[in-house]
């Protein structure tokens, strides 16, 4: 019998600050509950041990400014490493599915990293996706982000990637951090429709979320046919979460995972450390391991407490219809973009880092390749807490790039080096698994 792999890494010796939600205590009661239940002893569950992610694992996804060592805490390296342990266990067929109960989280971390965003340094799921692609040749994946906050980091990382379907349901960005994840955010010009956002009204219940699961998420997954489904498993939709306002229960989370059947689930947020996390984590393990969870509930659970309003029901129904149609029409939109015959597609924006109050200014140019998803050039500037102002250039060549894009991307990197434009020039060449940093002032190149 194949089991469910579980890795539990509570980082009991790490906190952002002593009273921060990301503190040592966060998974303490989850530890108590899981260990007291003895669920790791059950025949359907196998416990794994953590490891550190490597700099190369991180470089496949991120441009850390100025470098990984000074930007990423060891705790984040372990957390990402745990996701990789689960990926290995799953791909080597040691387990039937896997759940990484880890902290710190990752889904707010974007491609360029100037600091911590929404408690995240690096993106655990994205690091895992690129590892799965590189190590096991996986091509098509889906990430369903079930955290109450919009998974803006994961969305941004896969925005131009038509082979990664990113679905996020979350509390409406007008009422909650990070203030994004609206219906019209559908992906870049060549990957339109593989980003699907489902903003929900505050107080949405199990019923509402399950309507979305049944009528939108599952049909889209059926049509997209990913090789692997990842649950970016935040637990802050819970009715007791102090940072958000939803009405989801432990039972609701268990049923969600029973429906979604994720191959790999990775814990994201969730800050109701006594009332929600111990029970929700139990529920997810039980659902994934096929253990009957009907006897699971929170101490203060009352089935009659949360009722979906008819107004919200109607809103959800129309939202689901709209997004399903948008998803189904995605290829036509991409075709249209390609036929416009532009050489590059440019866009500019500001990115706010809430943990350290940083403001990044970014410009991105995507090559509108006629055959592939195109390579990207990102110019980014940000004044760090140290007072130092960084201006960097990044070349990102995705694994699915055509040979023409690869050679143009490499040419662009060489010419940037020659011009010494920016303090650091980075190359992320996933086709050749080659990651480099060029320091303009010293004229030195380092290979990861």
């Amino acid at each position, binding site marked *: 019998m194949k089991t469910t792999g579980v890795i539990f890494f509570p980082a009991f010796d790490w906190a952002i600050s002593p009273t921060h939600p990301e503190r040592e205590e966060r998974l303490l009661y989850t530890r108590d509950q899981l260990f*007291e239940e*003895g669920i790791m002893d059950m025949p359907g569950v196998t416990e794994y041990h953590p490891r550190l992610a490597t700099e190369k694992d991180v470089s496949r996804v991120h441009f850390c400014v100025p470098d990984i060592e000074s930007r990423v805490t060891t705790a984040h390296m372990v957390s990402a490493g745990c996701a990789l342990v689960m990926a290995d266990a799953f791909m080597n067929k040691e387990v039937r599915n896997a759940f990484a109960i880890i902290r710190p989280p990752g889904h707010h971390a974007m491609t360029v990293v100037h600091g911590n965003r929404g408690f995240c340094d690096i993106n655990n799921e994205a690091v895992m996706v690129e590892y799965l692609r590189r190590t096991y040749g996986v091509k098509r994946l889906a990430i369903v982000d079930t955290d109450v906050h919009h998974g803006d980091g994961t969305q941004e990382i896969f925005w131009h990637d038509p082979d990664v379907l990113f679905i996020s349901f979350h509390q409406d960005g007008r009422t909650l951090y990070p203030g994004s994840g609206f219906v019209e955010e559908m992906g870049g010009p060549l990957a339109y429709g593989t980003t699907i956002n489902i903003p929900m009204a505050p107080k949405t219940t199990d019923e509402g979320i399950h309507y979305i699961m049944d009528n939108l998420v599952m049909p889209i997954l059926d049509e997209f046919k990913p090789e692997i489904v990842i649950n970016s498993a935040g637990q802050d939709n819970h009715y007791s979460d102090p940072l958000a306002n939803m009405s989801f229960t432990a039972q609701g989370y268990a049923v969600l995972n029973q429906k979604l059947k994720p191959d790999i689930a990775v814990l994201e947020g969730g800050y109701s450390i006594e009332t929600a996390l111990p029970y929700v984590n139990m529920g997810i393990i*039980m659902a994934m391991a096929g253990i009957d969870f009907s006897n699971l509930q929170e*101490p203060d659970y009352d089935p009659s407490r949360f009722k979906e309003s008819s107004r919200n029901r109607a809103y959800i129904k129309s939202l689901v219809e709209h997004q399903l149609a948008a998803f189904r029409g995605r290829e036509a939109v991409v075709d249209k973009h390609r036929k416009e015959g532009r050489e590059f597609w440019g866009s500019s924006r500001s990115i706010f880092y809430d943990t350290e109050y940083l403001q990044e200014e970014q410009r991105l140019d995507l090559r509108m390749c006629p055959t592939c998803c195109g390579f990207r050039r990102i110019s980014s500037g940000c004044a760090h807490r140290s007072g130092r102002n960084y201006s960097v250039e990044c070349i990102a060549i995705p694994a699915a790039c055509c040979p023409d894009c690869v050679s143009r991307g490499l040419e662009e990197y060489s010419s940037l080096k020659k011009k010494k434009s920016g303090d650091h020039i980075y190359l992320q060449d996933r086709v050749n698994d080659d990651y480099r940093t060029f320091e303009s002032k010293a004229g030195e190149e380092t290979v990861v």
Partner: protein
Amino acid sequence: MNDALIGIDVGGTYTDGVLFSDGSVVHSVKHRTDEDDLEGTLLLILDDLLAHRRAKDVRRIVLSTTLVTNLLATGRGERTALILLPGKGLPNSAYDISPDTYFLKGWIDFRGRQIEAPDPKEIEDTLKKIHASGIERIAIAGKFSNRNDSHEKMLKKTAESLYPHMDVCTSNEISGRLNFPRRAVTCYYTAMTVRDWNRFADDMEAAIRARAPHCELHILKADGGTTTLAASRKRPCETVFSGPAASTMGTLALSREELNAVSIDIGGTTSDISLLIEGQPLYASRGALIAGHLTHVSSFAVSSIPLGGDSAVYTTDGKLEIGPMRLGPAACFGGEVPTVTDAFNIMNALGLGNAQASHAALSRVAQGLQVPLDSLCRSIAGEVVERLAQSIKDMFRLWEDEPAYKVWEVVHKREFHLHQVIGIGAAAPAVVPMLAERMKVPHFLHRLSPVANALGAAVARPTLAVEVHVDTGRETYSGSPGGLSGKVDKRNYQLKDARELAQACLKQVCADRGLADYADDAQIYSEEQFNVIRGWEQEGKLFDIGIQISPGFIREFKGVEN
């Protein structure tokens, strides 16, 4: 002077005894074990040993027995009811422990808060049902009873007042560790064996008192330490698997070095491998596995592989096979079929028994395979050593790959650096030197290794682990074993206060168990401290402190001459 120590280890096949005094083994005995009369076997050995020293010179007798192990393994324990108070969580079907299991109301959470009270009517009805079915032993286990034992205590009180003739055990008295199913199983096994064990204890006590009225009487536990016979009466489960513990403590007693070592006991058909880390035995991280269930009994991690000195060497379809079965003793000792021992005998010219017979028996196999005899012996030895080496490496990995819960533990990943291979058991002298060479470390063999088990029992010191959980927010603490609990003052409570509390708890348990002399040997082995933050304010602190007298030797033991 009364400095003599006696250790007796009852094994499945043989029972060994040693009389140890003034740094040397004065006398040792070996007898076949009579499974149906363990007491008879024990006394036979004891009388033999006492013939060599006046009884009043014997300071301590330590027994290692298979009584409880056998009762549980063969399912001969008496019918026992298990009352569970699991609250919400896993389905009731997850607890497949006793055919007589009753699920009752009562729910406590991880902070020890009562979520749902037990129902007195339901309790009485259940007890009535249990009584009506003729059951006289009850085990009671509640989820998180280690954080709040009030439900278990209330049930026990009710049961004892209504049915005073019944044996009632509660799980919080047995262990305070997290893991409710393991606590329930351990409590169930305790209730099941407590009466038989006490009968045995009564008999042994009477028999030994009649011979040596003033000597201390201890029992060897699975964790390699001893406990007084009196203290064992409440915790018979701790006496399981004491045999491998006796052997490992024996090898440690003989080598006396705080090294990273492999102790390998090569018997007739199996080899038992255990690890010593800086001289401390490695424990099974998930507790002893008894009759298919994990328990809270701490026992050594022992890997048993079906390969020993008597493993037969033969061919099937023109292929060389080694073991796992035994078809008699080695040819050099009069067997018909060549064995692993024969191969080592020839190859290393060990001169064991009738070496000619080893030669003849293996030559037949060599002819069948059409290979020269010396190359056959080399491949047999190579295969044996390789299999053992592989199992040893698997043990290293077991230890290295323990789950880690702190960043520090992941960054400082454990790596096992082997210093020595220690061999015991009949076939060890043949196999261990080559195995050690393969592992690129020195080997250690002692002339007393055949009685290492009994020696280990004789000189092992008592062990005891106490765990204390302090919740200053709730102003409570709970300690185990033994269901300690009480109030703490929330104001300015520090780690050092929690340490002192743990020390005090240990002293108290030591006193209760007649181990007061050893309380000073205790050391803190685990420490956790968490701030409880609610709404950006500190509401309290949580501490978990583990303190123990770890496996070791009684003070007067200073080593054995080789």
